[in-house]
């Protein structure tokens, strides 16, 4: 450590002190978050490795297949839904929960980024991670014989965006209302339950009637059904078109109302 001259005074330095441009601040935070997500071993496993494992597993094993669809197509649809839930819900809940406990959210509120910039950066970071997931999972799927139709991919984009809103808001709801330890447990358990028994890996239509009625009300089932319709040529379930947007709206409203920026 040295003792150099005093730091330059504001007046003497090039450029007046002030905030960076709004988009630059949001991009700065998004890159910081995305880098953090992709460089963290646990997060990397949840965001990339686990979906890859599920993709390979569903291609190889006779699980969740629908009549008339190629196994790789239904596997890609289920994997896309898994990746979305892992990134938007589990990863964001855990990261935001720890940020909240560590006082990061309080500090952020005092910087030029502010709370709105933090949330905007977080959304952008999620989309960045999605982009990485699409590249990695797409490459693996292509290697496994996936040959997507352009129209189906295009139709999946709005589903993907609404799904991001639904699961992102639910992830923030968990992070902003529960204690950190509970956030960790709830986000992981819910993720596993939604993927395994929530209509993602196995379509709700395969469940017994009573259970099916319940599962079809879950956002995971709606997301899985819609992605299967887009990517595996399945029928569009009318209920899913209503259920997923409703979860997105309800989740957003609950976050706005209940999210606490400081930990209790």
């Amino acid at each position: 450590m040295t003792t150099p001259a005093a730091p330059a005074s504001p007046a003497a330095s090039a450029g007046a002190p002030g905030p960076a441009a709004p988009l630059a601040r949001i991009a700065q935070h998004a890159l910081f978050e995305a880098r953090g997500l992709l460089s963290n071993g646990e997060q990397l496993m949840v965001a990339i490795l686990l979906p890859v494992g599920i993709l390979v597993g569903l291609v190889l094993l006779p699980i969740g297949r629908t009549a008339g669809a190629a196994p790789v197509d239904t596997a890609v649809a289920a994997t896309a839904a898994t990746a979305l839930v892992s990134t938007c819900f589990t990863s964001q809940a855990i990261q935001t929960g720890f940020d909240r406990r560590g006082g990061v959210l309080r500090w952020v509120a005092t910087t030029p980024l502010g709370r709105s910039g933090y949330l905007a950066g977080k959304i952008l970071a999620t989309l960045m991670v999605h982009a990485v997931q699409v590249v990695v999972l797409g490459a693996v799927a292509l290697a496994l014989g996936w040959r997507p139709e352009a129209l189906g991919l295009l139709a999946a984009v709005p589903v993907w965006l609404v799904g991001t809103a639904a699961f992102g808001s639910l992830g923030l709801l968990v992070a902003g209302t529960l204690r950190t330890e509970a956030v960790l447990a709830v986000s992981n358990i819910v993720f596993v339950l939604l993927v395994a028994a929530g209509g993602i890996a196995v379509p709700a239509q395969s469940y017994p009637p009573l259970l099916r009625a319940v599962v079809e009300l879950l956002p995971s089932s709606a997301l899985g059904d819609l992605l299967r319709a887009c990517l595996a040529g399945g029928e569009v379930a009318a209920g899913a078109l209503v259920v997923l947007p409703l979860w997105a709206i309800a989740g957003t409203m609950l976050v706005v109302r209940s999210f606490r920026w400081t930990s209790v």
Partner: protein
Amino acid sequence: MVNQPPALHAEALTKSYGAVRALDGVSFTAQRGEVTAILGPNGAGKSTTIACATGLIAPDAGTLEVLGQDPHRADAAHRARVGVMIQDGGLASGARALQLLRYGAGLYRAPRDVDELAERLGIDAFAGTLVRRLSGGQRQRLALALAIVGRPELVFLDEPTAGMDPAIRREVRTLISQLAQEGTAVVLTTHLMDDVVGLADHVLVITRGRVVAGGTVEEVVATHQSRRGTLTLRATATGVPAAAAPALRADLEAAAARHGVALELSTGDAADLEAVLLDVMDESGRSTENEEAR
């Protein structure tokens, strides 16, 4: 400086959490180019005062003006003029130290030179370490760097030297003094008398949410002197390596002389120091082992 409006003016702030009155009519002013120290024990209301002044929480009553604005309606431009070091750091635990500092710098249009700041505060020694693996003192240094990287006009430092070893603490005090010399208004909370005597132009003593004394160190001491005679304030030497002790002693003695306070280095712990000024201002008038009439 005297013709400029104060960087911060608080008037009769009150804040309650349920039945607990955290602030009870706190008023004070912080000037540009000066260090204002808020001194008090844990739970006295120091951090609540800072939280109100930084817009993190809203007071129940009272008025607050920070750089001419209400901090609760602050926009990004205003927040860029105010640097904040919160008590628990607020550092992203999964980031590496220098990565976090560069990220913080990127939120400002014309930040300080990150490498120079990192070297100055010794952050370069743990630049690649994950925040969650940093020691308390290392976290403090990183939080301090983040608070000043945007070259703020007003900086709030909540317990800035807590957990630091004596050599780093001395460097941080020098840095804080230089910030004030450059015209920055510095508001810091502390329960270390060393920080007050060595750094502060003004002292605000808070206990149980009430301001029990305010003014320069000399004024605060003089108030007590008028009642009980001259004081010797004891400063701690706990944890000071033998090699660093003479320099630390010289600094403290110079600062004490500047403020007209007799100083006695002791081996007591820092918690004893917290009691010094509070006991000085104790309305009950009881004497303590930390004061002696001459």
